[in-house]
């Protein structure tokens, strides 16, 4: 429980300060992009959200596997929390993307591989949450959700190869096809990494809070079941 106390006390501060430093880097340190102008700055939020969402979905799969294997509820609680927060960040990606794309591409949406892939992942984890919401609260639903979490992740390689069949226009971030960085200015890269780290802290904190809430909810449900059983 020591780790939990540390998380309770320091994570909100770390995440809050991280976000302020990230905002400072994005708006004051990173230079304005030459061709795209001010709208390019949304990119730091966009990419950081995307990375965080992928980490979240990875967490869901890993903890789901642990739950099926060990049957410990702790893993299930983390999986559900990570799925919820992951869908939140994935939604950020899908919202910030079109805001950027409208002035740059001239359209909100394109059936580009990366966009399609993110959208498919988003739908998979929304359906995961639906199963949680409408399935009930017993062990069976936990197992189903864990299985769905694993199904979602084993699909990722196929999603990646299948969306490559679509024509792509999404810009590369760190490595372009020519092997150069998509971010020429080191200050831009600094802003990206700082933002990504701040998002990771916020993600950890949110999952931590959500898991605690889930643990309490599960305990209450158990007590109610005990009461009913007499």
């Amino acid at each position, binding site marked *: 429980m020591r780790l939990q106390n540390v998380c309770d006390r320091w994570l909100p501060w770390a995440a809050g300060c991280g976000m302020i430093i990230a905002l400072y880097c994005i708006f004051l340190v990173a230079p304005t992009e030459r061709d795209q102008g001010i709208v390019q700055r949304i990119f730091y939020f966009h990419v950081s959200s995307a990375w965080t969402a992928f980490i979240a979905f990875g967490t869901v799969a890993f903890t789901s596997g642990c739950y099926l294997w060990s049957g410990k509820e702790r893993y299930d609680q983390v999986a559900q929390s990570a799925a919820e927060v992951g869908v939140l960040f994935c939604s950020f990606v899908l919202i910030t993307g079109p805001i950027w794309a409208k002035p740059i591409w001239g359209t909100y949406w394109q059936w580009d591989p990366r966009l399609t892939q993110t959208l498919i992942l988003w739908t998979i984890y929304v359906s995961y949450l639906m199963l949680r919401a409408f*399935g009930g609260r017993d062990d069976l639903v936990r197992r189903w959700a864990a299985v769905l979490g694993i199904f979602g992740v084993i*699909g990722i390689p196929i999603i990646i190869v299948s969306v490559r069949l679509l024509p792509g226009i999404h810009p590369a971030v760190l490595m372009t096809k020519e092997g150069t960085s998509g971010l020429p200015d080191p200050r831009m890269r600094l802003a990206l990494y700082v933002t990504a780290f701040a998002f990771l802290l916020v993600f950890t904190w949110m999952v931590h809070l959500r898991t605690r809430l889930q643990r309490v909810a599960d305990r209450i449900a158990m007590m109610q079941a005990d009461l009913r059983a007499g």
Partner: protein
Amino acid sequence: MLAILWKDLRIEWRTKEMLTSFGMLAVLLVLTLSFAHEAVAGPEHSGRVAGALWVAFVFAGMLGIQRSLLLERENECVSGLLLSPVDPGEIFLAKLLANVAMLALMQLLILPLAVVFMAADVGGHLGTLVLVMGLGNLGFAAIATFFAGVAARTRSREVMLPLLILPLLLPLVILAVKATGAVLDGGGVSDVGPTLTYLVAFDVMYCAAGWLLFEYVVRE
């Protein structure tokens, strides 16, 4: 009468169950249709035929598979099967094959319709077309069979199956529409080679996952 109306609306407002599940279902339907018609198919006629074929197949197949599992539930067959000394993985494979056969019959029915109503040219590479449709059928059946057992036991089961499997099926729709469109355009096995490989990979992965994990979804 107003009281009933008010009551219904208030229940929905409190639970939001219908709103979210049907809303998400609508979103998924729009997505599947735009995948089949916009993203993959493109403006060519063959692409449109392929899109229509696979959308019809997915939606009709979903209803059929759901029906077959509800039937089993009504007669308590599931408990009987689980009591018998058979590995759950084998139950899954048997159900999968039964569904594949049923879906193949359905494909046999809709393919001539596409020829008649949409002037699809299936003459050139019938063998390749059958191969593509068979692989798509197997992948679809693997996911649908697996989750039909889950969906049948949730509260809102009619909506739950499409909600669960459509997202997982989207890559299959892309691959199958792409391959079918290419075959209808007169392409042979060599033209759709990579797509076929991905389809095979999809099938193998989900059949294996279903075989290994079925135990966790049927065990009480």
